[in-house]
């Protein structure tokens, strides 16, 4: 296994990276897990329960045994199970607090049964529900982390509320899961493929990337994007696609991840492609510095997401390249920082 030196963050993979691979004929859960292990892309293994586990959130005992058996035989280490709080499950209303608690609690119990030490929820899981889940997390020994994903940043009001909650409760069982989509330095080139397929002109793609890169809060740029895209002939669905780029790619300074400590329980190593050993859209040298300075020794799950835009790249090769880059960056941090 490509493990990092003791006292450093550990590497791993989430099966979400293999979303297109999962659809290929002949693929099943075991074949994906086994290929991650065979290609030395552990030691951590994360997955989205609703993506990978048929029957979730009500797995039979036999299904639990089967999943545990596959993971144990692979030699990988369960790192995090991504679960969902489907508040908008029914049309026209949101789940009540009691329903939301039950919906998540069942899944935290499921994560414990499968041997995962951490679960991931989204920011739609309110501080009230999280506080209610704390006794269950403690009892099961399963941490619950709220993913901080674009467009969220440290300045977002829900994030401030969570920070206040975690500080007040002073518990290791609740915390944050930073996702690097919030702190990007460029929109990835993989979007060009998706735009071409959607009939969006290269000029519009260039315009959107340039506007994104300008100084100022991203949300304030929506009106200008809409106006200029419409002037350039974009249809309403195309404008929607362009706006999605602003939502999916945040611009927080990577140094700000330090402000989420000491409440970080897991890290998503989001990326959209490694080119010549570097990541053009995420400043990993800066992120690695923060994680090592903060003494983080949990997992960084490699989360390759360019599959949402393009099927041109091999996800296994991409994760290999990211692991090699991350191992080098983490191990080259000054010893004093560790």
């Amino acid at each position: 296994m490509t493990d990092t030196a003791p006292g450093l963050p550990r590497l791993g993979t989430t099966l979400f990276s293999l979303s297109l691979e999962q659809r290929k004929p002949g693929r099943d859960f075991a074949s994906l897990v086994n290929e991650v292990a065979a290609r030395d892309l552990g030691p951590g293994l994360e997955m989205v329960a609703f993506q990978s586990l048929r029957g979730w959130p009500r797995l039979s005992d036999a299904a639990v045994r089967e999943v545990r058996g596959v993971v144990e035989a692979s030699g990988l280490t369960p790192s995090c199970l991504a679960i969902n709080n489907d508040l908008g499950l029914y049309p026209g209303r949101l789940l009540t607090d009691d329903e939301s608690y039950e919906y998540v609690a069942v899944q935290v119990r499921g994560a414990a049964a499968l041997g995962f030490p951490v679960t991931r929820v989204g920011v739609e899981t309110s501080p009230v529900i999280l506080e209610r889940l704390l006794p269950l997390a403690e009892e099961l020994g399963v941490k619950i982390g709220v993913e901080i994903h674009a467009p969220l940043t440290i300045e977002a009001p829900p994030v401030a509320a969570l920070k206040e909650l975690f500080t007040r409760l002073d518990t290791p069982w609740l915390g944050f899961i930073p996702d690097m989509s919030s702190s990007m330095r460029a929109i990835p080139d993989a979007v060009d493929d998706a735009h071409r397929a959607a009939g969006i002109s290269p000029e519009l793609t260039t315009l959107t990337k340039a506007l994104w890169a300008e100084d100022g809060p991203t949300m304030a740029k929506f009106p200008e994007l809409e106006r200029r895209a419409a002037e350039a002939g974009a249809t309403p669905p195309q404008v929607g696609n362009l706006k999605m780029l602003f939502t999916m790619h945040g611009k927080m300074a990577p140094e700000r991840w330090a402000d989420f400590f000491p409440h970080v329980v897991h890290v998503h190593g989001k990326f959209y492609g490694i080119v010549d050993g570097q990541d053009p859209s995420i400043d990993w040298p800066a992120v690695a510095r923060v994680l090592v300075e903060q003494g983080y020794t949990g997992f960084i799950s490699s989360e390759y997401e360019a599959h949402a835009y393009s099927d041109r790249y091999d996800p296994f090769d991409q994760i290999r390249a990211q692991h090699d880059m991350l191992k080098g960056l983490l191990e080259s941090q000054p010893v004093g920082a560790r």
Partner: protein
Amino acid sequence: MGPLDDQVVRADSLTATPDGLDIAIYSHWYRALPLPSLARVELTVDGQRIDPDVLSVTVNGSRHPFGALAEAGDEYWFTTDPAVLHVPVESAPGREHRVQLLLGLSIPYILTGPDRVPLVAPSATDKTLTAAGASS
């Protein structure tokens, strides 16, 4: 927008049955979704708009009238499984049909706007395909 859009309706998705035309569709979202997430099915077959009220849908071996999906929150459409739309239009093995589909999936954990309304993720398909015969 993305590589999964082209897989919503596949080359072998159409089957002629004694009741009409079955269309196997695949999700363009990465995770299993509860059945109420099948929020919008705007379907046109051979130029004829199909009222969702005449559709029924088979998922996990159970057939539901389209209008009943909204109540089926305990059932999930798994990532790699088809959902089969049963469409009351005449077909026969070997017949070609033009299928235009705007599938809008309500994403129950991504809430948007001040009213916290679930995001609807659209995927548009326009394909002309040949129906196979139903296997007995």
